């Protein structure tokens, strides 16, 4: 009996171990890309371009211990000898191992190159810097070495402006749809008017309509109204595209609130407007918060709507546009990209981690968004 219990306990421990191991592997795979970006954003431009970000961790790397200048009179077409090994130029270029574990390599061309004696050592590259962030935030200049060897001064990037634009787009584009949806949800849940069922059916139907359907007509309207490139245009667009889901979710919540609250308030002579602002809004905070986080992340991370409706105006550009543009035009400036991308993630990550519970609740309440 006791041996059976023991074997059962052992089996249990084993299965726990397997579960945790499998989970650990998955979590590692999922986090490594983000860690890579975070680490890279603190590395120098040169390091990013010449070595993988994982080189900041201890690893074995061929490190130069001695540099030999080959003499001018050396016959470079024949067999040469350095640090106890000998070989032709081609063999030296590929690297020759010495008996005591070192490596001798010819670096550079035949005429001007040098010979390096290298040892395979444990090292890590930890020259971390905050320069990348300075360059993208303050638009500071920085110097780069061109292929020709000369130094060039290049202007950094202005992410501060893009960050402010993202904020100016996201806050109203989160609050306005929620306000409109909350009013509508109350109307649909607790008021009587002709066409109520038809209009709500329309809300449900529009939940999955892809926003691509609206881009061309709305852009034409904006051009004729001279709205294009304004914040109002983007707020309204996000409001329109987020509204069906917001109305549906808030309707489900508000309809579920106890009806006697409403009736007793009515008997006290309160109007619908008072009931809504004084009673329903405070009671709906959990539902409002969960949708707000959802909408905020969606708007902050949006690229397409911004691209279409403010694409033409560089001074209203949001972060996602700025980054996407940099990927295209300054693909080689990885150090700016890493810092920029991380700045764009900072606010959503903070919102996400501090309000995760609400966010999950919002996801669980609604399912399909168009």
């Amino acid at each position, binding site marked *: 009996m006791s041996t059976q219990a023991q074997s059962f306990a052992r089996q249990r421990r084993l299965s726990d171990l397997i579960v945790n191991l*499998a989970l650990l592997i998955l979590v590692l795979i999922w986090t490594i890309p983000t860690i890579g970006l975070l680490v890279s954003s603190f590395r120098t431009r040169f390091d990013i371009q010449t070595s993988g970000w994982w080189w900041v961790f201890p690893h074995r790397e061929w490190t130069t211990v001695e540099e030999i200048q080959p003499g001018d009179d050396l016959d470079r077409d024949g067999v040469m000898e350095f640090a106890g090994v000998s070989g032709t130029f081609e063999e030296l270029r590929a690297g020759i191992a010495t008996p005591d574990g070192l490596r001798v390599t010819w670096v550079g061309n035949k005429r001007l190159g040098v010979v390096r004696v290298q040892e395979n050592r444990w090292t890590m590259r930890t020259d971390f810097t905050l320069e990348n962030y300075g360059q993208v935030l303050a638009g500071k200049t920085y110097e780069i070495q061109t292929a020709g060897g000369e130094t060039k001064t290049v202007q950094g990037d202005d992410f501060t402006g893009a960050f402010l634009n993202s904020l100016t787009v996201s806050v109203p584009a989160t609050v306005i749809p929620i306000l409109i949806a909350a009013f509508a949800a109350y109307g649909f849940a607790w008021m009587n008017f002709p066409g*109520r069922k038809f209009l709500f059916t329309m809300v449900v139907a529009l939940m999955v309509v892809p926003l691509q359907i609206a881009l061309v*007509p*709305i852009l034409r309207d904006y051009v004729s109204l001279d709205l294009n490139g304004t914040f109002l245009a983007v707020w309204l667009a996000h409001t329109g595209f987020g509204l069906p889901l917001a109305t549906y979710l808030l309707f489900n919540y508000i309809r579920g609130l106890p009806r006697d609250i409403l009736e007793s308030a009515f008997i006290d002579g309160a109007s619908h407007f008072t009931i809504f602002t004084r009673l329903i809004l405070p009671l709906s905070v959990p539902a409002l918060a969960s949708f707000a986080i959802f909408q905020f992340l969606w708007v902050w991370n949006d690229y397409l709507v911004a691209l279409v409706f403010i694409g033409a105006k560089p001074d209203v550009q949001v972060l996602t546009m700025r980054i996407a543009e940099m990927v295209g035009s300054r693909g080689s400036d990885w150090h700016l990209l890493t810092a920029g991308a991380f700045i764009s993630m900072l606010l*959503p990550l903070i919102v996400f981690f501090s309000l995760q519970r609400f966010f999950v609740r919002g996801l669980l309440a609604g399912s399909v968004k168009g």
Partner: protein
Amino acid sequence: MQSTTDYQVKTSGFLDWIALIIGRVLISLIVPVTTFGVLIIGFRWLRDTIPTGTAEKTAVSVVAIVWGVGGAAILYVVSNWLIEQLNTKWVRRLQPFIFIGPAVAILLWYLALPTFRTFRNSLYNREGPLAVTFSTLFSAPGDFFGQLFTNFIGFDNYVAVFAENTMRVAFRNNLLWIIFGATLAVVFGLMVAVLADRSRFENAAKSLIFLPMAISMVGAGVIWNFIYEVKDIADPQIGLLNAIWVGLGQEPQAWTALIKEPWNNVFLIIIMIWLQTGYAMVIFSAAIKGIPEELMEASRVDGANEVQIFFRIMIPYIMGTIITVGTTIVIFTLKIFDIVMVMTGGQFSTQVIATQFYREAFTSNNRGSASAIAIVLLITVVPVMIYNLRQFAEEEAF
């Protein structure tokens, strides 16, 4: 004596009443007009101000946020106040439209009407339909129909959409996205949910898998560049995948670009799986916790092993959730745009429906063809729409 006072009271009452009405009407006009005026002045100022320097820019941002949020709230307050000036009967009749009116108007403008407008555009060539003057319908019907059918090409755009090779590749790619992307996101999500449910580190693990949900697809593109980047074989690889690949003694590959299509699409799809698994996991996790413990215990007592429990008890129990999550992710994948746009720009045969739509609409300026693509996209989600409507009708919320 008495009668004169009566008379005076009456006339003064009448005059008061008139004054009151006029006053009310005036106030009812002045308040909304002022509100509107102030909002429009604010809008003009925001549109025409080009701030220089960070401090000024911050100030403008704050003003814009206050103007936007406050403006929306004030419009509700003012219009409700206007309605409440009327008598009770009219308040009851009109107030619902203050509540639902703005929502309905915006939904009509931004989603419902564009569906018809886009469908109409899709029947015309790249110039689009002319503005029709209805007054000519009776005076000169020939002109009217002439105007109506200028640039009209029937379903030619749709024929072109399905005949063009680039579009066919786009459809195939979207299918790949659905088959690999949606399926694997669901599978991984379920896997993590089940594993985490049995682990002591449940919350930490779930948070980390969920984290990419907070990252934009553009940001994800930058992140994954550090995985997929390719360098010459003589240089050290700075992309993780190529570093591993070269470590295994292989040639470095341009994973998203030059490797044999359609396999390069798979590497873009992986990014989507990375982003969406967290979503699937959260929903599945909640569903799994809803399975009654007695059910699992009973089958354990009957000698079922964990694998059997997973396939025979868990999966059937949460089938509804799996379908919902699957549908959501399929709709999401149908509209996939940002990842492709940032990683490859739709080159190297990685284009999808949404990038083709963007190219037609805003690069080639071909409204007709772009509209046809958008309508095709809409048609693919119609089954989901019908399903939603049925569910809603069954709920009998009304």
